[in-house]
């Protein structure tokens, strides 16, 4: 059902501040700048913070290379060496690569799609501060002489309390999990923004290809990060509470950690590669002067890579004794992913061949990307072969391969992107002359460092060794690799110099300085804070090339929808997710401190847990809860209609499945389902690999399990009834069903606890995992109940007016997701209870 068809005017709409259009969108000055929620500010923060982590991680890499420059070196002691290479990998993979690319996406997507901001600006600010605080927690481990030293993958049993009794692993597990919240929130934010806020006429087929790359990447993050989050929570629980998830003596399995880690870890490679490839696909047509060859091929290839990359995780585990059939399955999938990757590369090459490329600095980096990434891809195919993988595993050949893929596939496009979009950030051009020096230093330095490592690996040098004896044929290769790393570092240092220099001395950038076709270049740099005075209709994938009226006029005179404002609020246009036709007006929040406060509360919660100050953790949790409540309490804007120009009369905040908040809730439920599925995988895995211990486990009680399933169904059912009542503006009915949803959630919680009471979580790993699954479902039940009560209180306290039923609408979707989890949990318990010994 929908109320879109008949929106009505009424005077209940909130007015914003009495400011001009420009004033409403102004970024606050001074310390209040930290409260900004603008995608441009938040995106730049992600980029700059990510780059700082890159420099720190790069410095650590230089320490590693200096240690290995000669055999028998004592520059670093063994423990420090372990810390240095662990932190190098951790910072690069978690705190640099993904956040910086998300930063570019957060910055560019609204500009390319014709939106004034991302749809959930507060979520963006919250994500950034989670990332910053998480990164600080991880880095602060150096100050406490407790830097993690177990490798960036934190394998168990090395990282369990028995072998890492200090808090170094806790710093890693807690800090990284916290920082991952940023990635997941950004993913939900980007999915919603791409689907719900595009310029009129920008159907999915007319979307810039970069948005396809980011859309698929965001879905991958939503599904790929949860296994690691669950793995980290299980491992931290084992360390803090002695729960035996990974203890073979009690039916646990260290390989469960590897499965969960690589279920995240391999898609992560593609999560890093795809946005960078999207940058290439955006920049390349600009310098060739022709549209991207094979838009359809590319979309198909990106979607295929997004899926198939989830079927490769076990190729990191070929030497762990998996069944031969499993090895073959993962080998086949690993080989097949080369097909969409190859399709994509051929599209780039065909685009190059379709015109006369201009050899600018970004173009040089694109060519560097093509050369290096293709080499990395080829060694990837070699490693997908099981017999070769057994030989090369954990050798420097793998180190060379992964750097060819990650630096070639991500860092080179990223540096090209810096040169390309720098005018957008600063209004000035970076130096072409220095840019060429940067490129050649990086290209020569990179290949000197890593090409030789293939040989070092084939000569048998294992990774992660702090030193090596002379005379094994590794000496000269290592020396050359280290020299190459210094050349690479010189290139990066020169880039930093150029970036700082250009902000004051770079040539002023003209409008559309590269002659690009995408919408972010509509305004002369720097684009004003509101992105568009009026949002222009789009008829092409390269609107600036195919719609001359856009560049013929001054940008602020371009015709479009939503020119100016009536209510003094930040607004952009919501669209149909598929066709891109205008559907509603999106009201966006103004600068606020609340998301920062929520992130701070969570940082206190996580940080104090490392120090075992649990009452401080509780205070942090309470701060976060209060902040989230304030965040959600603001009055609703829906139920009003406004003229949007160009013949469109649109409601504010449509109430149906295409609503941005509903799409956001669906994205959130997707993440929660992936978390839940990771736990189900854990239960089934342990049940399968340790039948003896599974048989020894106590069984859940049948009657409470059935009760839990019924209560789960009630949660979903009452949520849905609340939605119906809300849509019909039945105030009392909606409040009543919200209360019943909360009560059902409470009953489901109690029934799950009663079902698991006979099972001792410390006795077996399977029992512990069943409890973990129940705990996760319990958290969701708590959130459902909390939101239901929240909605009921808002209705009963007169905060809700006619037509403002979005919260009820969204709660129903969340309640159905939670209900499904309860029923699935009950089904697993019931299967175990009825089969006997299975659970």
């Amino acid at each position, binding site marked *: 059902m929908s109320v879109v068809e008949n929106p009505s005017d009424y005077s209940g709409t909130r007015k914003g501040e009495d400011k001009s259009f420009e004033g409403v969108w102004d970024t606050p000055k001074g310390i209040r700048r930290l409260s900004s929620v603008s995608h441009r500010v938040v995106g730049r923060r992600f980029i700059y913070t990510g780059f700082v982590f890159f420099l720190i991680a790069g410095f650590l890499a230089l320490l590693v290379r200096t240690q290995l420059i000669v055999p028998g070196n004592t520059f670093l002691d063994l423990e420090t060496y372990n810390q240095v290479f662990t932190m190098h990998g951790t910072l690069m993979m978690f705190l640099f690569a993904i956040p910086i690319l998300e930063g570019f996406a957060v910055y560019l997507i609204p500009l390319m799609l014709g939106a004034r901001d991302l749809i959930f600006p507060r979520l963006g600010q919250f994500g950034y501060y989670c990332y910053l605080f998480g990164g600080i927690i991880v880095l602060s481990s150096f100050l406490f002489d407790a830097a993690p030293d177990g490798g960036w993958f934190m394998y168990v049993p090395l990282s369990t309390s028995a072998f890492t009794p200090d808090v170094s692993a806790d710093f890693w597990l807690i800090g990284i999990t916290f920082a991952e919240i940023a990635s997941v929130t950004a993913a939900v934010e980007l999915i919603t923004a791409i689907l719900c806020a595009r310029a009129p006429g920008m*159907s*999915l*087929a007319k979307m810039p290809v970069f948005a396809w790359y980011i859309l698929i990447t965001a879905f991958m993050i939503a599904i790929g990060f949860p296994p690691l989050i669950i793995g980290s929570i299980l491992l931290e629980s084992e360390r803090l509470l002695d729960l035996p998830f990974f203890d073979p003596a009690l039916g646990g399995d260290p390989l469960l950690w590897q499965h969960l880690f690589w279920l995240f870890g391999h898609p992560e490679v593609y999560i890093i590669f795809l946005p960078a490839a999207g940058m290439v696909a955006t920049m390349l047509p600009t310098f060739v002067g022709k549209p991207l060859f*094979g*838009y*359809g*091929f590319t*979309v*198909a*290839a990106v*979607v*295929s890579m*997004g*899926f*198939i990359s*989830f*079927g490769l995780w076990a190729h990191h585990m070929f030497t762990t004794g998996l*069944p*031969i*059939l*499993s090895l*073959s*399955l993962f*080998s*086949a*999938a690993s*080989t*097949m992913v080369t*097909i*969409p990757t190859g*399709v994509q590369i051929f599209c780039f090459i065909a685009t190059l061949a379709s015109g006369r490329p201009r050899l600018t600095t970004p173009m040089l980096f694109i060519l560097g990307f093509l050369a290096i990434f293709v080499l990395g891809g080829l060694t990837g195919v070699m490693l997908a072969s099981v017999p070769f993988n057994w030989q090369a595993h954990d050798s420097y050949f793998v180190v060379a391969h992964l750097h060819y893929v990650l630096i070639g596939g991500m860092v080179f496009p990223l540096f090209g992107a810096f040169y390309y979009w720098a005018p957008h950030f600063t209004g000035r051009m970076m130096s072409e002359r220095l840019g060429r020096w940067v490129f050649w230093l990086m290209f020569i330095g990179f290949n000197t460092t890593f090409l030789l490592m293939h040989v070092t690996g084939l000569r048998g040098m294992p990774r992660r060794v702090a030193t090596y004896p002379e005379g094994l044929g590794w000496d000269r290769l290592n020396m050359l690799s280290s020299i190459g790393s210094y050349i690479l570092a010189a290139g990066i240092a020169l880039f930093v110099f150029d970036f700082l220099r250009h902000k004051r001395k770079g040539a002023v950038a003209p409008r559309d300085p590269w002659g690009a076709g995408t919408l972010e270049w509509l305004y002369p740099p720097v684009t004003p804070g509101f992105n568009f005075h009026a949002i222009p209709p789009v008829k092409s994938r390269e609107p600036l090339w195919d719609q001359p009226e856009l560049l013929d006029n001054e940008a602020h005179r371009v015709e479009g929808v939503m020119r100016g404002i009536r209510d003094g609020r930040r607004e952009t246009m919501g669209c149909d997710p*598929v*066709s891109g036709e205008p559907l509603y007006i999106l009201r966006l929040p103004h600068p606020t401190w609340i998301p920062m406060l929520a992130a701070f509360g969570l940082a206190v919660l996580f940080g104090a847990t490392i120090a075992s100050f649990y009452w401080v953790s509780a205070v942090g949790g309470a701060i976060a809860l209060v902040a989230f409540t304030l965040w959600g309490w603001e009055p609703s804007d829906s139920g009003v209609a406004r003229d949007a120009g160009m013949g469109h009369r649109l409601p504010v905040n449509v109430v149906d499945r295409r609503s941005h908040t509903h799409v956001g809730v669906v994205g959130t439920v997707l993440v929660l389902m992936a978390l839940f599925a990771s736990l189900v995988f854990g239960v089934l895995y342990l049940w*399968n*690999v*340790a*039948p003896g211990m599974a048989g020894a486990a106590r069984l859940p009680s049948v009657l409470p399990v059935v009760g839990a399933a019924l209560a789960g169904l009630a949660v979903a059912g009452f949520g849905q009834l609340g939605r119906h009542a809300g849509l019909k503006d039945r105030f009392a009915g909606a409040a009543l069903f919200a209360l019943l949803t909360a009560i059902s959630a409470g009953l489901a919680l109690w029934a799950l606890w009663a079902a698991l009471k006979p099972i001792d979580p410390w006795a077996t790993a399977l029992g512990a995992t069943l409890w973990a699954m129940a705990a996760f479902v319990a958290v969701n039940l708590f959130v459902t109940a909390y939101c239901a009560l929240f909605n009921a209180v808002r209705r009963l306290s007169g905060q809700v007016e006619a037509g403002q039923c979005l919260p009820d609408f969204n709660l129903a979707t969340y309640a159905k997701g939670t209900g499904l989890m309860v029923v699935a949990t009950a089904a697993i318990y019931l299967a175990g209870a009825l089969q006997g010994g299975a659970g």
Partner: protein
Amino acid sequence: MTNMARRVTAIVVPGLAWATHFIAVYALISAACPPRAMIGYSHLVATVAAVTLAALAACLWSVVSGWGKTDNDLGGAAFWSGLIFALAIFADAAILFFFQGCGG
């Protein structure tokens, strides 16, 4: 359903078919091979064959729906998505023809 929505569905369905197929093959191998060995190898092969045919049929639908279409409405993307995933599904299942049992 609009044409565009149909095309988007045709792009995504082969991916979902591949994912379902991959999970099914992985689960069946885990069920057939020790330590639990819940099903025999012949059952494994027969079930994988059935699942593979179903998954390939889903891909075929996308290939047909995108046949001869241009990129203007993502028809080409639907065609190529069906083709790429069909290859991947076939490769994932084909491994079983090279083995006689869980041991190789």
